[in-house]
Each structure stands twice: as structure tokens, then as C-alpha cells.
């Protein structure tokens, strides 16, 4: 037997000796900390939503809209009322932001977004074997050359990635083909605003992770120039 083989035999035999069992107290310490240790969801995770707060905010928001609508209605010009006949105005054409039907990261996606900044409207739907979700789009921003379009999940059977009330975004990289990655906030603490959601997700998933996760889409998407 060569010296090398003998050394390997002795080392292996030596390594086989020693501790093989994790003390229960160490395991207990780990399991005690699990409930207070949030999981880091790469690009598709979220903390549980504070449903109470969300519903409360929704109720307050809806009430505020109704009050404004009622007050505004009282001052609307009408026949026999204040003011004259309104001058017909051409309705502004919404600015295209993104429009297409494609598959990205295995998610069959439809995207229809107009507007810019924090005044985005439109809808995104996604579906795969995990379920389907619909996002009411609210905002967009170009970050490090990538177009982020995000909003609130309004309908979902994809409870793992996109529960109702969570925020979701798609990140698009221009090119041929366009590349995309989905960003789900899932059970993470809900960001204060749609724009803040982008910033928060970049903390959880740094730009390098976003870049690494981008995958070419299959299908077509038309992006604003």
C-alpha cells in the first residue's frame, strides 16, 4: 500500500471518530427561533399581510372617494344649474406602457398597461400550475435600465406567490427577445406605496439577483419607446 493510500486510510478512519449527534438543546434553540425568523423570499415571497390594516385602509379609502364624488356632484353644471354647457374636450389617449401576451418564467402572462410613474393603469394576469392571479397595475419605474411595472393582486388562486392584497411586479429588460422576471411580495410586510414596493424588493433581492433571474420571454410584448 502506498504512503498516500495509507495516509488516506488513516485520515478516513480518524474522521469516522467523534461527534455524530446534534445535542437536543441546539436543535431546540433553532426551532425556538424559527417563528421569529422571517424567510427571505428571493423574488417571489411575501410576509403575511396585516389584513386588518388593509381592510381598514380600504374602507377609509372607499369612504373618502364616495364623499368627494358626492360633493363634486353637487357642483356639476347641468341644465338650469350653474355654469354653461361644457365644451367638448377630446379625451386624452392613454400612453402605452406595455402590452403583450407571453410566457415568462413559466407563467402565462397578459400585460396591458398605460400611463407613467405612479399613474399607471391596466391589468396583468398570470397563470401556471400553481394557480392564477390578476394584478391591478399602479406604477412603473425604470431602475438600472430595467422597466418595473407593479400593482396590487386583486384576484388569485396562486396563494403561494401572489395572495390577494399582496403586491406584484414584472421586471422587463428590453432587447430581442425581451427578458422578464416576476417579483412577488407575498407575505413580506406590505410596502407603503407601489413605488416603495420596488425599493423594498431591491433590498430583499439585490440587482444582481434580479439580473441573474431574468429569462427570455416566449411571445410578444410591446413596450413604450
Amino acid at each position: 500500500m502506498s504512503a498516500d493510500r495509507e495516509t488516506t486510510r488513516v485520515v478516513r478512519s480518524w474522521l469516522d471518530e467523534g461527534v455524530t449527534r446534534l445535542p437536543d438543546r441546539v436543535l431546540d434553540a433553532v426551532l425556538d427561533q424559527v417563528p421569529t425568523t422571517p424567510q427571505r423570499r428571493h423574488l417571489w415571497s411575501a410576509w403575511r399581510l396585516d389584513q386588518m390594516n388593509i381592510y381598514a385602509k380600504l374602507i377609509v379609502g372607499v369612504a373618502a372617494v364616495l364623499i368627494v364624488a358626492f360633493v363634486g356632484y353637487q357642483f356639476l353644471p347641468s341644465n338650469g344649474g350653474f355654469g354653461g354647457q361644457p365644451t367638448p374636450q377630446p379625451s386624452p389617449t392613454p400612453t402605452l406602457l406595455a402590452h403583450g401576451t407571453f410566457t415568462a418564467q413559466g407563467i402565462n402572462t397578459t400585460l396591458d398597461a398605460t400611463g407613467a410613474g405612479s399613474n399607471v393603469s391596466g391589468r396583468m394576469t398570470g397563470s401556471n400550475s400553481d394557480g392564477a392571479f390578476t394584478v391591478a397595475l399602479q406604477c412603473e419605474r425604470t431602475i438600472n435600465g430595467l422597466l418595473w411595472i407593479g400593482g396590487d393582486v386583486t384576484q388569485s388562486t396562486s396563494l403561494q406567490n401572489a395572495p390577494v392584497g399582496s403586491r406584484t411586479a414584472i421586471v422587463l429588460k428590453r432587447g430581442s427577445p425581451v427578458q422578464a422576471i416576476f417579483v412577488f411580495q407575498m407575505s413580506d410586510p406590505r410596502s407603503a406605496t407601489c413605488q416603495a414596493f420596488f425599493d423594498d424588493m431591491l433590498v430583499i433581492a439585490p440587482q444582481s439577483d434580479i439580473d441573474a433571474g431574468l429569462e427570455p420571454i416566449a411571445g410578444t410584448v410591446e413596450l413604450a419607446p
Partner: protein
Amino acid sequence: MDTDLVLRAQRGDEEAFASLAVAIGDRLHAVSHRILRDVDLAEDATQQALLTIWRDLPQLRDPARFDAWSYRLLVRACYAEGRRTRQWAPNLRILPADELAGPDATSSVVDRDQLERGFRRLSIDHRAVVVLHHYLDLPLETVAETLDIPLGTVKSRLLHAMRGLRAALDADARPARQEAVR
């Protein structure tokens, strides 16, 4: 590893993670102890690795690669422990009487002592390669994948480490031979 358990833990199922931790805890601890050669440091490293596994589990894309991924996190935890504590307390182990019986019992004890010293002189990088390959029996390609380093680096680290350990054993043999000549 039970992929279903991994998937459930990925989704935040704490009970599934508890089962997972029980299943892998001993193995992780055995590895960390062999790398760090210190019970307390190994316990800290294993604890940290298990918590990191829980925290980062949703980021694991392929649950089938859980084992390699968990070893990678464990080795990182060992690096952290190694950096945190440069001074390692000696580990004393009382040998059972039957281990001392036998014709070459004395040389075995000496070998252990020399190996212990030789191993402690190695960096964590080198120790990790030795333990993953010679204790876990992982092929070198898997060691490279686990540690996220090139295969050539694994081979050179293993070669260097084994030379160091052999030198440690030879160093013990030399004075003994000289003693016999006198």
C-alpha cells in the same frame, strides 16, 4: 432528502422544517465538528446553518439539490465561526479502555494526536474539502459544486491538505525511529 418536506418548508411550514432539521441536524453537526474540531464552535455553526437554511430556503430553486445546498451553507457558517474565534480550545477526549487495547493502540493514539495538530494547521477551505470528500464520501465534482469552486481548486486543496496531514504523521514517525536507532 424528502423533497416534499423541503417544498413544504420552502412555503413556510414550520413543522415541515422541524422534521427537516431533525433529519439533517446530526449530519450537519458531524460535518461542522470535523471541520472546526471544537464542540462549541461546531454547535454554533450548525445552529447558524440551520437558521440560515430556514431563512433562505425559498431561494433554493431545485429542492432536489437541497443536500449540496445545505452543506454549502454549513461550510459558510464554519468559515464565520472560524473567523470569529481564532483561538480554539483543545478538545480532550477520554478514550474508552477497549480503544487502547490491541497491539498498535499506542500508535493509533499518536496518529490521532498528530492528525489533530496537522488538521488544525489547515485553513477552513482545506478542511472543508477533506471532510466533504473523505468523511461524506462526496465525489470531487460534487465537492466542487457544493463549495461553488472549480474542480481544479478542489483537487489542489485536497492534495495540499493530504500532504500536510501526511507530513504531520511523518513528523511523529521520525523521532520514534531515531529513538529506536539509539
